[in-house]
């Protein structure tokens, strides 16, 4: 990290004046009100609203999207340094000398998120109309989804940490409700509970951070905290950073608090697409980027962030290789991609912009991939095992096409989105310099290769090869209400990256908030070349293992015939010896650790608390004389302590 880089962000982020919103931006709170009203109508309206519930459910996020676009256009009318606007709503909490307003901060960062949440969210709501059409509880589902959108918007638009915390808990609540939506499945209920418990750990970290902020700065507003952050000292900044990281880890399913995300796939697929891929799980990244002025002050905290990101991106990718459940494979991929974002966010101002850019395009392609998976699942009688798929590209051509575009985007093939946002992260990691930079960069690069491997695997196993369907499966292409969102998302997945990153459009837009990264060194660098090579390698190995054996000629194979042919020379034996065996071993190991290690930690913790609860409970004998004894002992202790203080 060079000195110029370190110096930049503090000025950029903390010295930004936040002006009061004027004109049309003053109605930004409508963004929250629409989905909230939708949720209230749908959840309180009862069965009366069954008939038109889904219409309301789709209309509300779309209305929010319109408001977000209007707000965004209005923002573009201001000069770059005056785009952060505060929308005061009402005084929320005022205790003693402490004062929190419920206000919205509309700036470049939050509006990016708002557009993503409402835009992608509307599309997924639309998809869900078809997907949930046979579910008797569709109205309730839309109620929860609208609740989620409102809470997520509150999270990103809040102008202080406390309000953000409210949104944070709100999205958590909506997420638990939706994971457990199909309550009749015990696994769904267990998954909801697990998500809740794991998130408690993160929430504890976040709330202690807020208390620490209050104790140090006497305020929790962004402007107040960031303005004084540099005066707080390195230790406080490190503590704050690590506590916020703990919160981010839980919400964004980062190691070591990642275990809930895979189980969360028990929820309906639109939920997985919206909450557990596109938006909520990225809240941790938002938290870190939003708190940039704090992280900028502490190398230690940033290092922890990068390590968490790098470990998770490999961890998630390896898990993605091991899962036969299409949704869980995609969930592993989500962990991995968020790992990239966290890694980028940990790189400081050199990476913040790329983290957010990757987050946005990830929202497009991962939502698209999940919707594709949902469409397949919908048509295959709720089957999610990829070993029961195969050959679907013939019967579901639109789904297959959109999924393929998503696949190209996620593995980062030029000119698809992932290429433009993932490569800068890898490059920035290498540019960090030193051993840590090399390690992080290599991890990110290897991760890209593994990503290509497992995503190709998913694609091949699902859409190509023999039909390994259950006998009673009769898949057809899904109706237009479901394909149209997938098509729109596929367009985003294809073009968003180029649109955002070419000509530094997004970098220039966001840098007043996050600080600018160093100028890029052209489109094709040695790093991106090497990455591309690894990606190709991964895809080809996957093809060799899953595509070639069944159907010799496939579309991806035709795309890279030379490499494939050269690779083929090594033969299956080498494949097996060099990659497959260790790979399987590695995947098995990681799954083992996922089940035993991390879950084990949580379980041990729970068992300890539960055990001590059981032991303490036995003190409550039911005999009044033993209660009196406990009081007497307490009295001795209390008198003793007070006298000790005196002596």
């Amino acid at each position, binding site marked *: 990290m060079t000195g110029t880089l370190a110096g930049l962000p503090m000025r950029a982020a903390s010295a930004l004046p936040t002006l009061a919103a004027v004109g049309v931006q003053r109605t930004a709170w409508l963004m929250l009100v629409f989905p909230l009203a939708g949720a209230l109508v749908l959840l309180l309206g009862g069965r009366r609203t069954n008939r038109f519930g889904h219409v309301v459910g789709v209309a509300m996020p779309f209305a929010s999207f319109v408001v977000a676009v209007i707000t965004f256009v209005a923002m573009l009318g201001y000069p770059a340094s005056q785009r952060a606007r505060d929308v005061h709503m009402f005084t929320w909490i005022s205790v003693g000398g402490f004062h929190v307003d419920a206000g919205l901060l509309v700036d470049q960062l939050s509006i990016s998120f708002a557009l993503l949440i409402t835009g992608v969210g509307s599309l997924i709501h639309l998809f869900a109309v078809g997907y949930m059409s046979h579910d008797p509880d569709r109205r309730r589902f839309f109620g929860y989804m609208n609740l989620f959108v409102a809470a997520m918007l509150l999270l990103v638009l809040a102008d202080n940490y406390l309000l953000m915390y409210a949104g944070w808990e709100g999205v958590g609540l909506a997420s638990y409700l939706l994971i457990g939506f199909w309550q009749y499945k015990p696994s769904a209920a267990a998954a909801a509970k697990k998500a809740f418990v794991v998130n408690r750990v993160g929430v504890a970290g976040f709330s202690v951070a807020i208390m620490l902020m209050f104790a140090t700065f006497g305020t929790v507003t962004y402007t107040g905290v960031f303005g004084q952050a540099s005066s707080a000292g390195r230790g406080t900044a490190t503590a704050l950073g690590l506590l916020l990281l703990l919160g981010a880890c839980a919400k964004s399913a980062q190691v070591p608090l990642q275990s809930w995300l895979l189980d969360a796939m028990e929820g309906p697929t639109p939920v997985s697409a919206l909450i557990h891929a596109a938006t909520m799980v990225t809240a941790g990244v938002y938290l870190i980027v939003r708190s940039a002025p704090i992280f900028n002050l502490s190398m230690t905290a940033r290092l922890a962030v990068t390590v968490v990101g790098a470990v998770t991106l490999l961890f998630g990718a390896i898990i993605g290789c091991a899962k036969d459940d299409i949704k869980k494979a995609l969930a592993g991929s989500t962990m991995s991609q968020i790992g990239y974002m966290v890694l980028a966010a940990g790189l400081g101002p050199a990476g913040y912009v790329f983290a957010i850019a990757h987050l946005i395009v990830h929202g497009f392609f991962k939502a698209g991939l999940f919707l594709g998976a949902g469409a397949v699942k919908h048509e295959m009688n709720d089957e999610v095992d990829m070993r029961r798929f195969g050959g679907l590209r013939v019967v579901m051509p639109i789904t297959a096409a959109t999924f393929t575009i998503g696949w190209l985007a996620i593995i980062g093939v030029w000119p698809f989105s992932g290429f433009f946002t993932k490569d800068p992260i890898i490059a920035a990691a290498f540019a960090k310099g030193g051993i840590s930079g090399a390690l992080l960069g290599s991890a990110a690069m290897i991760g890209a290769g593994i990503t290509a491997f497992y995503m190709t695997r998913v694609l091949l196993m699902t859409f190509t090869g023999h039909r390994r369907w259950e006998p009673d499966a009769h898949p057809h292409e899904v109706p237009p209400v479901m394909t149209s969102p997938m098509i729109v998302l596929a367009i985003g997945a294809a073009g968003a990256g180029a649109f955002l990153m070419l000509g530094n459009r997004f970098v220039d837009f966001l840098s007043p908030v996050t600080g600018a990264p160093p100028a890029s060194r052209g489109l094709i660098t040695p790093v991106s070349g090497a990455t591309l090579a690894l990606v190709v390698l991964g895809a080809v190995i996957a093809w060799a293992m899953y595509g070639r054996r069944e159907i010799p000629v496939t579309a991806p194979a035709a795309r890279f015939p030379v490499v494939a042919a050269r690779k083929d020379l090594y033969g299956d034996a080498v494949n097996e010896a060099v990659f497959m065996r260790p790979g399987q071993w590695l995947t098995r190991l990681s799954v083992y650790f996922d089940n035993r290690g991390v879950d084990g930690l949580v379980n041990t913790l729970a068992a300890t608390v539960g055990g001590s609860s059981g032991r303490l409970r036995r003190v409550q*004998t*039911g*005999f009044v004389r*033993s209660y009196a004894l406990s009081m007497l002992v307490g009295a001795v202790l209390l*008198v*003793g302590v007070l006298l000790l203080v005196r002596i």
Partner: protein
Amino acid sequence: MNAAHVLAASTVGAGAVVAFWILAVISVAAALGLVLAPRAVHGAVLLAVVMLSLAVLYGVAGAPFLAFVQIIVYTGAVLMLFLFVLMIVGVSAADSMRETIRGQRLAAGLAGIGLLVLLALVVGHAAIGPAAPAGSNYGVLNVQRLAQLIFTRYVFPFELTSALLITAALGAMVLAHRERTSPKPSQRDLARQRVRGDHPAPLPGPGVYARGDAADMPALLPDGTPSPLSLNPVMARRRGSAIRVPGPGVPAPLPPGEPGKDGGPDAEPDREGAHP
């Protein structure tokens, strides 16, 4: 400097000191006996000793009003009520003194001694100066002074105790008085009932031919076996009473109640910490 010493020394003189030491020993011993005596009636008598000792101490300390209140209200009224109840229940009733919780006595003893030591340290360390001169608040004007305080400075809490008394009266009514829900049986009803029942003649009273005549002592039948009819059914059900064998060689009249279960009736099977 010993607090008791100060207290004693600050009053009238050597006579008071002597009285203090004698009464202190008596009252502490009686209080210990009160706690340790298995029979309730012994406890009541020992309580009377404690209260009387305290009353004398108050008197010696120049607080005659308190001394008399102590005797009239506590020893005279409250304790007599205790004794009435004990007589009705059975004067020789004894509680089971067996301890069923492991370590309870040891722990209680240790904690009690601990608190005692701590409080002794407190009082021992406290530098209690000479008490206020035994002025007008004590001795002959004590009653007036008390009256003055009660009706001026402390008039509000004093009046407030009426709430406590009303509550107590109401509580006694609630807990003890059973409202009649069916018409009272007439003389005729009772006679008819008796003739139709198994025992046209009066039931034997408690204590007939037995060693004592307490209410919980069953009468003995001609063959020496106790008659359960002679006892009030409520009393017969009472644990610990009427278990005693009236004479040597005579089998116990009633099945013994469950011993050592004074944690209260425990109706809930799912309570924590089942009884050992």
